[in-house]
């Protein structure tokens, strides 16, 4: 440990202003602060001691919370592949998991390399430290796309969202829209056939490095939500609900298992990284709207089925609670979450064009979050103005 510390201290001058490796100083800073807690002490005139929490810790815990869903997603990719090939009996647990691992890993690598690469360049250019925000976005992105998404599409979409949804606003903390969702929205509107298409996109059908199976013929497997939407939410087969809870259904890589997402939710709520106010109100809003739709006989499925189908749970737990793009006031969080749930179910049931409404609902509310906060803060402002006038 000390050897590494001494080595870093020895090479550090090269990365400082005037050093020969100055062009890589943000990379060095990034790695140094990753390995060691920064030793900078507080300046005169500011608080002398600090809480141990920092944004690295917060972002790391979100990534940890995503792990159950990611690992389950890998397994499910292998499971769906075996199912498509009709070889479920021959497939082993580890065989399916490693198949999924190999199918998902390139997406994670592409997402991180492209996104972090841009972040490093921007940090270098703006003479700032690397910001950790993309640690989370970079793992979220592969988890919300179909497993068959071509890597080049992913690379373009990541670059688009990091530059145009985040960096031009000023980086992590300043963006209006959730960068991971912008990536998905970009793919969704630019390459619709690769994102929903003819229902062949949800299942990986080629064997990789000898693992997995090649499906004998093009296998179509709509997501249960897609099926439900196509059939107008009538005559929905409730037998798949159990599978939708465990997650053994076709869908985007990380979104299928409600159980795995719940594990992540528990960690996020326990550590206080995500706001329970936002998360719970998304479910309340979705439930209310689902119940209303059922009561109006617009949809046959139970109100709570919306929670377990598609990306509702994943969006509620990991996307809606993004502290930067959600409402920032405590009262605002209730309204924000509630409206996400309402809009998501509304889009699902009432708009036949889009079977999944979660992405659009969150992006729409990202746009309205500042307005919600404005109203909450304005109440405080008018209270103060009134007090001044009444004296």
């Amino acid at each position, binding site marked *: 440990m000390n050897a590494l510390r001494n080595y870093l201290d020895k090479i550090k001058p090269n990365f400082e202003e005037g050093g020969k490796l100055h062009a890589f100083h943000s990379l060095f800073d990034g790695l140094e602060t990753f390995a*060691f807690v920064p030793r900078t002490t507080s300046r005169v005139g500011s608080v002398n001691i600090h809480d*141990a*929490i*920092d944004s690295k810790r917060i972002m790391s815990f979100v990534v940890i919370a995503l792990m159950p869903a990611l690992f389950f997603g890998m397994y499910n990719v292998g499971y769906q592949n075996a199912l498509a090939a009709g070889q479920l009996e021959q497939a082993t647990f580890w065989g399916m998991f490693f198949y999924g691992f190999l199918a998902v890993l390139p997406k994670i690598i592409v997402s991180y390399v492209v996104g972090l690469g841009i972040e490093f360049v921007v940090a270098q250019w703006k003479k700032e430290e690397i910001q*950790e925000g993309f640690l989370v976005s970079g793992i979220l992105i592969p988890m919300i796309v179909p497993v068959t998404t071509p890597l080049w599409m992913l690379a373009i979409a990541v670059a688009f969202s990091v530059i145009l949804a985040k960096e031009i606003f000023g980086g992590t903390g300043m963006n209006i829209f959730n960068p991971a969702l912008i990536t998905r929205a970009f793919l969704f509107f630019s390459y619709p056939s690769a994102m929903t298409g003819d229902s062949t996109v949800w299942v990986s059908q080629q064997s990789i490095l000898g693992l997995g199976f090649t499906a004998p013929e093009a296998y179509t497997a709509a997501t249960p939500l897609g099926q439900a939407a196509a059939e107008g939410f009538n005559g929905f087969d409730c037998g798949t609900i159990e599978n939708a809870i465990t997650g053994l259904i076709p869908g985007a890589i990380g979104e299928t298992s409600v159980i795995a997402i719940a594990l992540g939710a528990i960690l996020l709520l326990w*550590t206080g990284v995500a706001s329970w106010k936002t998360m719970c109100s998304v479910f309340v809003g979705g439930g209310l709207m689902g119940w209303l739709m059922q009561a109006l006989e617009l949809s046959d499925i139970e109100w709570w089925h919306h929670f377990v189908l598609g990306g509702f749970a994943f969006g509620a737990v990991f996307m809606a609670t993004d502290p930067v793009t*959600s409402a920032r006031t*405590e009262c605002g969080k209730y309204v924000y979450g509630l409206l996400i749930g309402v809009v998501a179910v509304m889009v699902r049931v009432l708009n036949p064009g889009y079977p999944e409404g979660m992405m659009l609902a969150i992006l729409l509310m990202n746009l309205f979050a500042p307005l919600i906060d404005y109203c909450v803060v304005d109440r405080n402002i008018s209270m103060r103005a009134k007090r001044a006038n009444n004296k």
Partner: protein
Amino acid sequence: MSLKFINFTPVLGHSIFINHYMTKVIKLRKGLDVNLKGRATRELGQVGCPGEYALVPDDFAGMKPKVVVKEGDQVLVGDALFVDKLHPEVKFTSPVSGVVSLVERGDRRKLLSVRVKPDGEQKAREFGVTEDVKALLLESGLFGFFRSRPYDVVANPEDKPKAVFVSAFNSMPLSQDFEYVLEGQEKEFQAGISALAKLAKVHLGVSSKQTAKALLEAKDCEVTVFDGPAPAGNVGVQINHISPINKGEVVWTLGAEEVIFVGRLLLTGKLDLTRTVALAGSEVVAPKYYKMLVGQKLTTLVEGKLVKADHHQRIIDGNVMTGLKTTAEGFLGAHHTEVNVIPEGDDNAEMLGWIMPRLNEFSTSRSYCSWLFGRKKEYTLDARIKGGERHIIMSGEYDRVFPMDIFAGYLVKAIITGDIDRQEALGIYEVAPEDFAIAEFVDSSKLELQRIVREGLDILRKENA
């Protein structure tokens, strides 16, 4: 203390009770108590007489100093060393008698300090006892200790304050216990309060843990009891709950020990700036109290009383949350009631902080383990920032520890963006930098909130002048 429930006002974020002294008890929920190692015990130590004293103009925020002595001049206790250029009647006077040894200037001839070599006799100027309290305070230099809100700067004698606020307790970690300081000085304290009452209505904020009769039954003032975690002892928090400042209004604030200064002056006709200073912190061998004068050199205070260590130590002139980093060569700041010493931490190589359990670290976040150890555990925290500065990412972090009806995060953003109308609308006139100390401590984005607020207040004051 038996509490009778009479009113619940969730809008203000506090509930109000009446206790058996018939005083109002305000219960605050927001805030944070950090339990640091090395709290001062109620014991008085001896400190030697140092060779030099200094009065530092920077301790009196918002004032432009004009030196009125030359090096080599003889001064008595209470003789002016410098005055406020804009209000020359506001004098800043010598805490000791002796010879002016140095008028220290920095860049662009900025006055850094005026130093006095003591003659060891403490000959004090006689001010006599007059009815005009304000004139006496101005002449003796005690008026310079008054601060006014808005802006948290030295008070302007021409202002008509709507009230004078005094907080009888400091809720920050490692702070002075005012009840201990008060022992034996009750008469002076009451005389001081009564004198303040001639300037404006006096509000005294008392902690629910304090029991001294001199506080709870103080005359000529309205006593309000505050029950809650830090920063409940901040006078700004108390103002916000008792009588919030509106635009155009001015209130004055004075430290509790400075009320004793006023009392001494009125009872004896002489200035005596002796404080009972707490020397506290994890790097102090036996943390306790010492009698010191304002501006006294810290050498004699800290010498031989710190833990012998091969790591660096940080001596803080003032409180660990709000005080200034200094050295043993520094001087006790005018408003400071304690000197804290903690490890500097710049030689600490801690690996992989983003994932390790870090059991010795304190955090309000449950991603660390402090919640497991309860409130009894005492922490040794060093001066590291423990993270990189970021834009504000998490929401509601400040508001959790900011017990006023102000959106702290939005106010900070308005200050950063220089939007003066919005700062006014969000309540900047009610705050001082120290009110943001706990928020700065918990901030995961590691912004220097106290500095941001100080600079914001200075700019606003210039704009409104």
